[in-house]
């Protein structure tokens, strides 16, 4: 059965190493698996996200992205590390995701930065944020620094982490029933019970 994998990438430049990492993680996850993949580039939604914060409703393109995240069986979330944490854009996106949308959802977290000194931002910033949202974050978080993309990075260390993290995500998705999203307009109670 086809499962839905949504990939959120908060990279800003073009081409983006954050997107590169997201693509490698996605490729590892879909290998030998039947996944329908949706990639969300937050750069394209930056204005919509700010407008949602101000007006309280999502413009159409952002609504589509939020619905995709809510309906995903598995999520890959990748951010550049800015000033010791996830980027503001990445956080702002998850600030407008419904607080219950990620409950029990398998999530693979990953990040990029200039040097390996930022790697624990995944553990002190991203993992707690997704824990708050009650997502199931897989044990292996993947960090890639500029060194990992270098010409002499052929030892495969990053690649082995990507493979391990992706297989953990696939296993968690496989353990669960396909996600169904509750329609907010479909009331489940009779008004007499509310009285």
């Amino acid at each position, binding site marked *: 059965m086809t499962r839905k994998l949504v990939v959120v990438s908060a990279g800003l430049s073009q081409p983006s190493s954050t997107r590169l990492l997201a693509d490698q993680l996605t490729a590892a996850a879909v290998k030998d698996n039947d996944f329908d993949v949706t990639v969300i580039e937050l750069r394209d939604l930056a*204005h919509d996200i700010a*407008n949602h914060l101000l007006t*309280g409703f999502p*413009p159409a393109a952002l609504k589509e992205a939020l619905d995709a995240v809510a309906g995903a069986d598995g999520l890959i979330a990748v951010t550049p590390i800015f000033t010791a944490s996830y980027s503001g854009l990445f956080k702002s996106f998850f600030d407008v995701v419904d607080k219950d949308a990620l409950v029990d959802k398998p999530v693979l977290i990953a990040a990029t930065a200039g040097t390996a000194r930022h790697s624990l931002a995944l553990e002190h910033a991203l993992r707690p944020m997704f824990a708050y949202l009650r997502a199931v974050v897989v044990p292996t978080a993947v960090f890639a620094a500029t060194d990992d993309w270098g010409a002499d990075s052929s030892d495969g260390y990053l690649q082995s982490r990507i493979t391990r993290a992706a297989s953990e995500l696939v296993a968690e998705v496989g353990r669960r029933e396909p996600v169904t999203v509750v329609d907010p*307009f479909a*009331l489940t109670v009779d*008004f*007499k019970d509310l*009285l």
Partner: protein
Amino acid sequence: MQFGIFSVSDITTDPTNGQTPTEHERIKNIVTIAKHAEEVGLDVFALGEHHNEPFFSSSPTTTLGYIAAQTDKLLLSTATTLITTNDPVKIAEDYAMLQHLSGGRVDLMMGRGNTGPVYPWFGKDIRAGIPLAIENYALLHKLWREHVVDWSGKFRTPLQSFTSTPRPLDGIPPFVWHGSIRSPEIAEQAAFYGDGFFANHIFWPKEHTQRMIALYRERFAHYGHGDPDQAIVGLGGQVFMRKNSQDAVKEFRPYFDNAPVYGHGPSLEDFTSQTPLTVGSPEQVIERTLGFREYVGDYQRQLFLLDHAGLPLKTVLEQLDLLGEEVVPVLRKEFASLKPAHVPDAPTHASMLLKAQEVTA
């Protein structure tokens, strides 16, 4: 179909000249605006209720009573009456009094209020917003319909042998609309009682309003009040007009860009395409407004927001002139020709009285 305006009573600096009206000026202006609404042939004036700056309208029945004394036909309503933080006993008393003084020219729109800090000032908690709205309205509904009330609930002192006075005019409680931007429970509440449902229709895309109204209509029928298309629906709306649409856009833009709530956010063009806001010529407003019917069905009340974001009184009165002279006459005619006979008008005191007399006759 009823047409009118609603005011949120904000006191906002005019971004084009930096001038801020005093509370006194703004309060006197709102009376002028309401009276002019009647002069240009509109049916309804609805006033908001707020208990925090920058709003002035903490005491709507005082203002509406004063307006009632200076108007003849205008139906006075609220947008909204805070059913959460007000004592339902006081709402029952105040609006029955207004009903008597205005000769039955009053209905109400219930709302919860979304300003967190206001709730504790009245001893309430915003997290209980829905249960408060449900319990308080149940009591209000009873107070207007039963002469002697014994009651106990979770949020208020119990009542024993209490009679709310004055009794509703002619024994007919004011018609009630329930307003909500995003809570299906409130659409359900309106449907349960067979009351009206009013969609804010300003801050959210039309698809959202469409689904809320569809839910209300379906549940209205479920509770046995009629067919879904006989439910009583009201819509908000926001317009700014000049004869020439480019002039409207140019003049309104600074007010839009600096407006409370959505200012400094989306562009005027984006907001116009994403929400029902229409900035342009009277013809464009007519066309857009007629289009509302296509996604909510035949509806009974259309209120426009005109006096906000620091727009000066003179401009608001000009907007009223355009609405009364060029827009509403066409809308009245067009909507009337489209509405099937089995779809009712919004209940008024006169229509409800007639119905009551027919039942007893």
